[in-house]
């Protein structure tokens, strides 16, 4: 009987405290009945008792069958859970880029690698915290047996469903949030003179030339328009004709502006001290000019891609 007691104790350990006594009492009664039936054929050896207990199943498995574990997120809430997670992580990424950019631009010797590491490090910390909070919120509903999205599932109408669309027509959250982060970063760089202190501004060894700075500031309304467009994409989540046309226009403006900027030398100018002898400002200017031309390829690609998609959409 010692084996039976050990088995019951092992099952008990896996059970919630309020159910331990009752379930173990019942389980023991059932096991004893089974052993009694076997004992009618002769005295039971320890190996026979062990075989009966083995047949019952592992103590943890038996405990799970008596009290099935409740899922952290209810099945019907999984899609809402994923949606919430993507949205929150996206917003945190954008905020992290803003914070990182502020620190990087404000530092006198900020390296690009340091800037990227700051974003990654900060984002991982924030993401872990956000993930925990979201999981706990959904879990609190799950343990109460409530479903957050239960109300939505009853009031739907077939007529409200979106039209059948190819997979490319669905806008990905990751794309929208990376676009938003880029636009906000650009705005912060262009308008750094507004939010940075005079000491921070004076500490920078290389700055945009006056001409380029002015061009960038004139371009700011297009960047603001891009931000609004990203919010519109988040709201619609599907590429429509209007959205494609707007996106095409914005990307075309970016491509033309970047090419125009690339041929507007000088792009940079030295402020105060020299560049520690590593590079000359002319070299940096040349590299930046090439980088701008390469960068212009991305909006150009998106512009052509959206044109093809738009033609496909109006043809269907």
């Amino acid at each position, binding site marked *: 009987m010692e084996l039976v007691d050990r088995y019951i104790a092992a099952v008990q350990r896996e059970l919630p405290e309020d159910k331990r006594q009752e379930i173990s*009492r*019942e389980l023991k009664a*059932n096991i004893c009945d*089974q052993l009694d039936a076997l004992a009618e054929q002769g005295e039971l050896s320890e190996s026979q008792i062990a075989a009966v207990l083995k047949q019952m*199943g592992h103590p943890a*498995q038996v405990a799970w069958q008596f009290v099935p574990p409740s899922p952290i997120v209810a099945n019907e809430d999984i899609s809402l859970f994923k949606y919430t997670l993507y949205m929150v992580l996206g917003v945190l990424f954008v905020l992290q880029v803003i914070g990182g950019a502020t620190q990087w631009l404000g530092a006198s010797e900020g390296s690009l690698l340091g800037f990227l590491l700051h974003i990654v490090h900060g984002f991982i910390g924030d993401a872990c915290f956000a993930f925990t909070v979201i999981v706990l919120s959904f879990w609190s509903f799950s343990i109460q047996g409530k479903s957050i999205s239960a109300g939505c599932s009853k009031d739907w109408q077939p007529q409200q469903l979106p039209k059948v669309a190819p997979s490319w027509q669905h806008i990905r959250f990751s794309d929208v949030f990376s676009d938003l982060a880029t636009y906000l970063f650009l705005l912060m760089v262009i308008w750094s003179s507004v939010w940075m202190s005079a000491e921070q501004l004076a500490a920078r060894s290389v700055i945009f030339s006056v001409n380029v700075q002015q061009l960038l500031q004139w371009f700011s309304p297009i960047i603001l328009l891009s931000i609004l467009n990203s919010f519109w994409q988040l709201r619609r989540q599907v590429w429509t004709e209007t959205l494609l046309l707007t996106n095409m226009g914005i990307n075309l403006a970016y491509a033309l502006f970047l090419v125009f900027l690339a041929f507007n030398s000088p792009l940079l100018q030295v402020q105060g001290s020299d560049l520690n002898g590593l590079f000359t400002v002319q070299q940096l200017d040349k590299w930046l000019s090439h980088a701008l031309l390469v960068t212009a390829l991305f909006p150009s690609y998106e512009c052509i891609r959206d044109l093809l998609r738009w033609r496909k959409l109006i043809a269907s």
Partner: protein
Amino acid sequence: MTSSQLVKMRLELRRGVLVLAVLGLLKQPHYGYSLRKQLQDGGIDIDEGTLYPLVRRLAEQGLLDSEWRQAEGRERRYYQLSSSGAELLSQLTEEWQQLNGALAFLLGQVTDENTEEN
């Protein structure tokens, strides 16, 4: 089909039927082991790890009444259909008979088609 697939499908197929069988047997009071014996004698082999938790869940849902009784020098928990359990059993029995009839017809058709093909 692999043997693991067969095991999984058989489990799924038996899960619902098992509830019906247990409710049907518990028109008379039974304790865990005697219920299992009755099921085995009736041709339904079920392991203890599945049956005992199932009976408890049915009791928690109010479909079974239970009481502890002393018998043969040992305490046992006896289960029996409650009034709502009896009501559910009659509905499920009707459902099962309809389903069984439909399935017998459908499976009969499949068997006939196979015979014709051969």
